[in-house]
């Protein structure tokens, strides 16, 4: 299971990477592996929407389940990865790169402190 070191994680299996106040958000390798083959991604937001941490970002449907993705941080939506609408399988093959879900202009960087680092998330997954 891949848990890149430079990312932050939350318990609901989203990762976030913040650079220059912009957060890129996706789901973890653990999440995509548990879901198995993803068949559909439905976004719950549009660019320019203001969102709060905990708001729904998207619903991911796999052959096994339907899962909610929630925002780990608050802010304004800059971009949504629309490519996933046609190629949802990128969430399985490249969850940390091509399979990113949304980019957010972060409004409160202190929210990042509440998230787990890679070691903590790795330990959390091992226990499940």
């Amino acid at each position, binding site marked *: 299971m891949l848990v890149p070191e430079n990312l932050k994680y939350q318990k609901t299996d989203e990762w976030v990477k913040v650079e220059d106040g912009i957060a890129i958000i996706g789901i973890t390798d653990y999440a995509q592996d548990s879901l198995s083959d993803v068949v559909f991604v*439905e976004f719950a937001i549009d660019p320019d929407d203001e969102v709060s941490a905990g708001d729904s970002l998207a619903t991911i*449907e796999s052959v096994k389940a*339907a899962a909610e993705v929630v925002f780990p941080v608050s802010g304004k939506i800059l971009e949504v990865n629309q490519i996933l609408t046609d190629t949802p399988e990128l969430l399985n093959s490249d969850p940390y790169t091509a399979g990113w879900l949304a980019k957010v202009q972060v409004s409160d960087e202190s929210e990042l402190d509440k998230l787990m680092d890679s070691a903590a998330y790795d330990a959390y997954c091992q226990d499940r």
Partner: protein
Amino acid sequence: MFTPHTKADVEAMLRTIGVGKVEDLFNVVPEKNRFPDLNLPQPLTEMEAAAELDSIASANATTRDFICFLGAGAYNHYIPAAIDNLLQRGEFYTAYTPYQPEISQGTLQSIFEFQSLISLLTGMDVSNASHYDGATAAAEAVILANNHFRGKRTKVLLSRAVNPQYREVIRGYMQANDALHIVGDDPETGIEPDMKRLIDQIDLNTSLVMVQYPDFFGRIIDYKPLIEAAHAQGALVAVVVNPTALALLTPPGELGADIVVGEGQPLGIPLSYGGPYLGFFAVKNALLRKISGRLVGETVDTQGELAYVLTLTAREQHIRREKASSNICSNQGLMTLAATIYMTLLGKTGFQEVANLCYQNAHYTASAVEAIPGFSLPFRNTPYFHEFVVRADQDLPELLSHLEDHGILGGYDLSDAYPELKGCLLMAVTEMISRGDIDYLTEVLSEVQHA
């Protein structure tokens, strides 16, 4: 009453929750309402009860006793005897929701065939397994559009020529949504067949435009310009259809409709004083995931054999309650089966023959009525299917009661729903009306005129 629990079960449950007897569970109900005196008549034997029910039922008039020109959303069609016969087979009659495909292949296959037939008829990509009736299916179209835009587009445009009862049900369904504005069906926008004043109201805040085809007055209107105008603003278009008419008309899917809904009653379901009826609901592929209710799909089992399962129930409450877009769960199983048998039994040409008979009968009736002094057709220049509007010079309720005295249900008085059509009658003519019936109608109407 079906009570699956034995006395021992009940006692065990009561012990578990620490309640002495079943009656104690109702202690929260105020005592005076708990076991009210029902003042019921003495019990009857089965024979006595049957006689009493027969006598009550005999007070009803049915379409067997009258020549019926009433339509306005429910239509008197011939129902082949085979339908009832097959519906009453125990395997279908008692079957409930087919959650378990391993024991529900017959039900699932019949629903799959229903969906396929509706998709074919409407020219759409996918149909769900049904709704309660045409009106609730229309309301689901509004809900779908609202969800599609995640509530960001707050205007829904309804054509005034959509069945007034459907518009009422839509408003009832959406009454808790204060953000939504359901407009377009006011007298100012009107019922002109060019739809221009409705088209002018389509904007970037419009989620859905709903029209009817043929419209409530039976008129066949080319909705292509309206659909193009709606799509230019990114809005969805829902078309309410009469399934019988689609045997002859270009299906709305080909005209570019995004959603097609309708009342399935004309497909082999009796009038029955208003129900149970059947709503159908079809969409283009782009809206597949937003469709309410359930879909049955074809697949193969572990042995590679053809099999049917509930599939893509993304909006069903038993799968994802909080994401469900409607409360439709138990579909109108028996009614979908009736419609499926009806369409299959008639086949494509038989179904077209029924529609053609309706069309010809209606046009013959319209010209016969129009020829009588004192009657005119306000929409005579617009093509129509099996229903048309007649303006009568004389008092309409009086005329209708006179016709009733002569064994004729004359039609639907439009005065209340459409003040602008005061004194106008909506007449429907199906294959059940014979040439002799039409001649008799004109005879009675001519006498009234001379009286």
